[in-house]
C-alpha cells in the first residue's frame, strides 16, 4: 500500500511530514490485513500444525524411561556396552526400582521397554517387588537373584537405548530395522518384518487404483465434455452424486453386492453363468473395486475441466492436414489433456495412499494398507511412537511423490475443476 501511495504521489516529493503520515497509514493498512488473517492462522496453528507436529514428534521423543528410572539411565549413558555395566549401575537400578515402585510408575517404564524386548514388563515389576525391602546382599547380587536376565548385556542395552531424550527405535522399526546389543543397526528377524512389505503394497494398490480410475474416467470425462452444456450438467451431477453419500455407506454397499450370498452372486448363479458362488469379497479384488468407485470422481472432474477448455479447432486443423481421427485424437488431443491427467492421477493416488476404511471393510488380512497399521498402533495397542513413525513414513512417501510431480509437471500446471 505504501509503495502504491508513493508512486502515485505527484512530483516533486511531498514534504517529510506528509510522507510519514502516508507511511503510517500504509502500515496501519498492513496491520489491519494481518489482523484479518490472524484468526485463520491461529485456527490452522491450533487445530492442524501443532497437533500433527506433537503427534509426529512422538516417533522420536522417548522421555518415559529416563523420567521413571533417572539414576540408572544416567549411569548407563557412559557405559561402553562391551561388558556388563559397573556396580554403580546395579545400585542405581535398585534405587530406581524402589522409587518407581513406590510412585506406581514402574509399569509405564515396563510398557516402553516391552516394545523392544518381550518380557521386560514382568522383569521390572517382579524385580521391583523382590528388591523392595533392603537386602543384605550387594545390589548386583540382589538383582541377579531376582532374575538372571540382569546378568545379560541385552537387558542393560535395552534400558540404555530407551534412555532418551530422543530415540530412533520407532523410526527404525517402521522400516523393519532395529538396534542390537552393540547398538549397531540390524535387520529385524524375517518373521517379524512387516512394514516394508506393507509400504510396497500400499504404493501398489494406490497405483493400480489410479490407473483403473484413469482408464474408466478418461472416456467418461471425454463424453461429458462433448455434450451440450445442459446435458453435461446432468452427467456431472451424476458423477458428483456419490459424493453426497457417506464413504461408509458406499463401502458397505459393496459388501452387500459382492458377498457370497450377495446380489451379484445370486444373479450369476440364477443365470447359470457360474455354478459355485464366486469369492469376490475380503480379497484384493473387492478393495480395487470399492476404491475405484469411491475415487473415480476425483479423476473425472479435473479431466473434464481441462477437456472443456480445449478448443475443437485443433482437432479440425489436424484433420484438415490429413490426420485420421484416431491420429488427431492421439497426437493432438491427448497431449493437451495431460495437465488434467496429471492432476487427476495425483489426487487419486495421494488419497488412495491413506485409505483405511475401505480396505478394512472389504479387504482380506493381506490387503491392509499402511493406515490400517497406524490405526492399529494408535488405538488398539496404544503404541503412539510406532503409530507416529508409520505416519512419518506415509507422509514422507506422499511428499516425495509431490516433489516428483513438481519436477516433472510443475505444481503451477495443476488444474482442478
Amino acid at each position: 500500500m505504501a509503495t502504491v501511495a508513493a508512486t502515485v504521489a505527484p512530483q516533486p516529493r511531498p514534504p517529510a511530514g506528509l510522507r510519514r503520515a502516508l507511511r503510517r497509514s500504509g502500515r496501519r493498512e498492513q496491520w489491519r490485513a494481518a489482523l484479518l488473517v490472524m484468526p485463520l492462522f491461529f485456527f490452522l496453528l491450533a487445530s492442524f500444525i501443532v497437533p500433527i507436529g506433537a503427534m509426529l514428534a512422538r516417533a522420536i521423543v522417548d522421555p518415559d524411561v529416563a523420567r521413571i528410572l533417572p539414576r540408572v539411565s544416567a549411569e548407563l549413558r557412559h557405559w561402553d556396552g562391551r561388558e556388563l555395566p559397573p556396580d554403580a549401575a546395579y545400585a542405581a537400578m535398585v534405587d530406581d526400582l524402589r522409587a518407581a515402585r513406590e510412585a506406581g510408575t514402574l509399569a509405564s517404564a515396563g510398557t516402553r521397554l516391552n516394545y523392544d524386548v518381550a518380557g521386560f514388563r514382568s522383569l521390572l515389576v517382579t524385580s521391583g517387588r523382590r528388591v523392595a525391602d533392603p537386602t543384605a546382599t550387594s545390589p548386583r547380587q540382589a538383582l541377579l537373584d531376582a532374575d538372571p536376565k540382569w546378568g545379560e548385556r541385552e537387558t542393560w542395552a535395552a534400558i540404555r537405548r530407551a534412555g532418551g531424550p530422543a530415540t530412533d527405535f520407532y523410526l527404525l522399526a517402521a522400516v523393519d530395522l532395529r538396534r542390537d546389543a552393540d547398538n549397531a543397526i540390524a535387520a529385524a528377524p524375517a518373521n517379524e518384518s512387516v512394514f516394508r512389505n506393507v509400504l510396497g503394497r500400499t504404493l501398489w494398490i494406490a497405483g493400480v487404483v489410479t490407473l483403473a480410475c484413469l482408464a474408466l474416467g478418461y472416456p467418461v470425462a471425454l463424453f461429458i465434455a462433448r455434450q451440450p452444456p445442459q446435458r453435461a450438467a446432468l452427467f456431472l451431477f451424476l458423477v458428483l452424486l456419490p459424493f453426497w453419500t457417506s464413504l461408509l455407506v458406499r463401502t458397505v454397499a459393496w459388501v452387500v453386492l459382492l458377498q457370497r450370498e450377495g446380489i451379484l452372486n445370486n444373479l450369476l448363479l440364477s443365470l447359470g453363468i457360474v455354478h459355485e458362488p464366486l469369492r469376490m469379497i475380503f480379497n484384493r479384488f473387492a478393495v480395487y473395486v470399492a476404491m475405484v468407485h469411491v475415487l473415480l470422481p476425483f479423476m473425472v472432474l479435473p479431466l473434464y475441466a481441462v477437456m472443456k477448455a480445449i478448443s475443437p479447432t485443433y482437432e479440425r486443423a489436424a484433420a484438415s492436414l490429413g490426420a485420421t481421427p484416431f491420429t488427431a485424437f492421439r497426437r493432438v488431443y491427448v497431449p493437451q489433456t495431460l495437465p488434467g491427467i496429471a492432476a487427476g492421477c495425483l489426487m487419486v493416488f495421494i488419497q488412495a495412499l491413506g485409505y483405511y476404511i475401505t480396505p478394512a471393510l472389504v479387504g482380506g488380512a493381506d490387503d491392509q494398507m499402511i493406515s490400517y497399521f497406524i490405526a492399529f498402533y494408535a488405538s488398539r495397542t496404544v503404541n503412539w511412537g510406532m503409530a507416529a513413525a508409520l505416519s512419518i513414513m506415509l507422509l514422507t512417501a506422499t511428499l516425495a511423490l509431490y516433489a516428483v510431480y513438481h519436477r516433472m509437471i510443475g505444481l503451477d500446471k495443476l488444474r482442478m475443476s
Partner: protein
Amino acid sequence: MQAKFWNLGAIALCAAALAIPASARDLTVVSWGGDYQDAQRDAYFKPFMQTTGVKMAEESWDGGVGTLRAKIQGGSNNWDVVQVESEELLLGCEEGLYEKLDWAKLGGKDKYMPDAVNDCGVGAIVYSFVLAYDGDKIKSDAPKSWADFWNTQKWPGKRALRKGPKTTLEIALMADGVAPKDVYKTLGTDAGVERAFKKLDQLKANLVWWEKGSQPPQLLASGEVAMTDVYNGRIAAANAKEKKNFKIVWTNNLYTIDSWVVMKGTPNKADAEKYLLFVNDPNNQKNLPPKIPYGVTTKAATALIDKNVLPNLATAPENLASALSINDKFWLENLDKLNQRFNAWVAK
C-alpha cells in the same frame, strides 16, 4: 423475545446446577452398557437399591486402562465401582488404581471360582470364545472340536477367527492336539509359537478375520464362512432375536472373566463394599444368566440357575471341563512381540 429470555434463564439455571460441587456423590457403578447393562439393572441395580436403601447412579464405558488412569491421576475421579476386563484388572492393580479388596468381607476366597479371585478385583461374569456353526447348513455329522475346524475336506467352506494372535494361537495349538493345561507352557517357547503358526499355515487360504464381536454371527448368517470362533453370548442373542439355528461347540472353549473393581480413594467405600456383597450373593447372581447368557462367579450360584439356561453358560460344569482360561499375564508380556509376528505372518 420472551422465549429467548426463558431459554437464557434455563441455560443459566442449568449452569448453576452443574457448578454446585457434588459433595455427597451417590455410589456410581460403571459397566459396559447395552443389553448387558439392561440385564444388570434388572438383576442387580434395582434390587440393590430397594434392599439396602443405598442411592446409586450408573454409567457406561468402553474400557481402556487409560480412562481409569486419567481419572485417578487427574484427581477428579467420580466413579466408585467399575467393571473391567481381565487385562485392565492386571494393569490397573499394578499401577495402584484400585483399592485392595478385603476378601473376608466378601465371604472368603473359597466362595468363588478360583479365576474370579484377585487382590484388586472380584469376578463378575464369565464368557467364552467358542466354535460356532449354522445348524441349518451343517445338519448331520456336526464338528466337535477345533481339530474339526481345520478339516476343510469334510466340512468345506471358509473359517473365521478373531484377528490378532490372542486366542488365535491358543486355538491353533489345541487344534494341533495340545491339551488346554499345556497351551501356555507350549506358547511360552519359540518352538511352540512356531508350531502354532505352522498349524495356522494349513488353514490360511480358508481364513477370514473378524474384529468386532458383531461380525461372526453375520458371517455365519450370510454363508460367508462355515465355522467361526465367537463370544458365546452373541450366538445366544442371534438365535433368540433373529431366529437363527446357530450351534455352539463347547469343547476346548476359551474363557475369560470380567471383574468388579473399587476405584482408589473413593469416598463411598462402605457403599461399594455393600454393593459387591450384594452382587456376589448367589441368590442375586442366579438372576443374571436368564437375562443374558453370561456365567456368574460364585460356586453356589451354578446350582441355583435355571436348568434351561445353564447349558448356555461358560460356567456350566460340562462346559468348563475342557475349557482353557485365557492367560492375561502371558499376553501382557508377549502381545507386542506376537502382534508383530502375527501381522508379518498375515501379510505373507
